[in-house]
């Protein structure tokens, strides 16, 4: 194993995978509780338009994908608040249109030797040092902003109206959260690809919800689940020679079903523990 880790491409893949899954895990707790799974799908698919635009313009697809995804995220929120369009309709329209635009851009660019499959399904083993650096910057930025506004985002996730009345800047925070999602989506492309990103944005939070009774615990658990599945999935994919992104997602899905089946037992156990601690010494 130590021989394996001395391989440069594996080191980079591991560092990038851990960073991406860490930030995805933390974000996914909010995505699950705010019921934003579908908007995650919408933003990630629209990144395809951005990637293709990068090929057309001959610039790094990372930057065009970020610009495209942030723009689509903001447009979806704008449509939700300023028009009579339902949110899921808006998402459905924007993401299909972005993917269609992506195909047109690819056609216009005349570039046929690019690794479209890699963008769609991830190719973490091909990641370069520059991409790892970009992932590190985005991860740091997103985690810092989440930490800064942690309790406010929890509050608006729980009860937006009351949060507004008590002075929380609900509207800017909604936009901020979507922009953070867009940033995370784009750097996740390297790990699992456009099609599978929504798994990283949803499943760790869903697994953590099965396992935890407190929001803070849920966030830590989700981060742990995401990082663990990524490292485990990468190792497994290397061992059995499966595609890495798909293996990670399958590990996550299996974890979800296992914890889902255990959930009633885990929760009743949690409750019993709570009752015991309340009746412990000092209580009556």
């Amino acid at each position, binding site marked *: 194993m130590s021989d394996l880790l001395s391989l440069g491409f594996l080191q980079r893949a591991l560092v990038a995978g851990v960073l991406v899954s860490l930030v995805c895990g933390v974000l996914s707790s909010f995505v699950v509780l705010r019921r934003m799974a579908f908007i995650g799908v919408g933003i990630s698919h629209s990144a395809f338009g951005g990637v293709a635009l990068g090929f057309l313009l001959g610039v790094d697809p990372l930057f065009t994908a970020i610009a495209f995804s942030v723009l689509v995220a903001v447009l979806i929120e704008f449509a939700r608040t300023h028009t009579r369009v339902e949110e899921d309709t808006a998402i459905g329209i924007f993401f299909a249109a972005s993917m269609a635009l992506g195909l047109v851009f690819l056609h216009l660019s005349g570039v046929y030797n690019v690794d479209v499959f890699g963008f769609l399904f991830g190719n973490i083993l091909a990641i370069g040092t520059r991409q790892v650096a970009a992932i590190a910057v985005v991860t740091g930025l997103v985690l810092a902003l989440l930490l800064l506004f942690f309790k406010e985002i929890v509050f608006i996730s729980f009860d937006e109206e009351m949060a507004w009345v*008590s*002075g929380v800047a609900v509207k800017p925070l909604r936009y901020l959260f979507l922009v953070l999602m867009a940033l995370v989506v784009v750097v996740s492309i390297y790990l699992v690809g456009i099609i599978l990103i929504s798994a990283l944005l949803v499943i760790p939070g869903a697994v953590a919800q099965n396992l*935890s009774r407190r*929001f803070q615990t849920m966030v830590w658990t989700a981060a742990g689940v995401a990082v663990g599945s990524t490292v485990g999935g990468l190792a497994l994919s290397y061992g059995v020679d499966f595609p890495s992104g798909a293996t990670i997602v399958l590990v996550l899905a299996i974890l979800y079903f296992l914890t889902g089946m255990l959930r009633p037992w885990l929760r009743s156990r949690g409750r019993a523990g709570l009752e015991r601690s309340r009746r412990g010494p000092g209580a009556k």
Partner: protein
Amino acid sequence: MGETAVKLTGVTVAYGGQAVLDRIDLEIEAGKYVGILGPNGAGKSTLLKVILGLITPVQGEVAVFGQPPQQLRLRGQGAGYLPQRPLSNPAFPVSVFDVVLMGRYGRIGPARRPGREDRQAAMLQLERLGIGHLAGRLIGEVSGGEQQRVFIARALCAEPRLLVLDEPTMSLDVCVQDEVFELIYRLKEKLDLTVLMVSHDIGGVARHVDDVICINRRIHVHQAPPIGRLGLESTFGCSVEYLFHGEIPHRVVKAQDE
């Protein structure tokens, strides 16, 4: 007349071109307990949201203790609010204590954690509402009546002067409903609050309130002397299947007579 808690001048709210509230003038004195009655879709919740600043009227002015509600909330002096459905996701993994503590997030400000003073304030409200023993339970695991107490505790946690309640007894059984009405009355007396409460329960409202506002999309005015069945019927637009004893003290909103 003492200080004015809420003042609406010519307030009109419209959704998609249709007026929900039409040129309303209303003045509520500080320290009053005011019930708001009206049929479904009459604009009761809209009226509350206008007073909270959640909805900006297309016309007219709103002042709460002399200031626009949008400014009050930014200073952490917004009203205490109990929404109609405060728990949209019962599976949200958050304790009763943490829910009450949220009431102070606005005034704590971003990037800062709740301090000891905030935690004490939250615990005080829980004790005051008789649910201190539930502090560690999950919000989704306590009963409906207990949940309402939790959300009232949250509303009081920022020490508001105005408490706004939207159907606080809607999903509760009758005994618990009475408890909640009692509780709100006691809190109002003790904390010197101005209370605005929307309710379907005419009897429950009538027992404690100082004033009743009857509202319908097209707002009717009854003169100040007590209304009888006839007055309620004209507000509800249908015969009111209701027997009540005595008289409901009553104050009404400006007429819109065509």
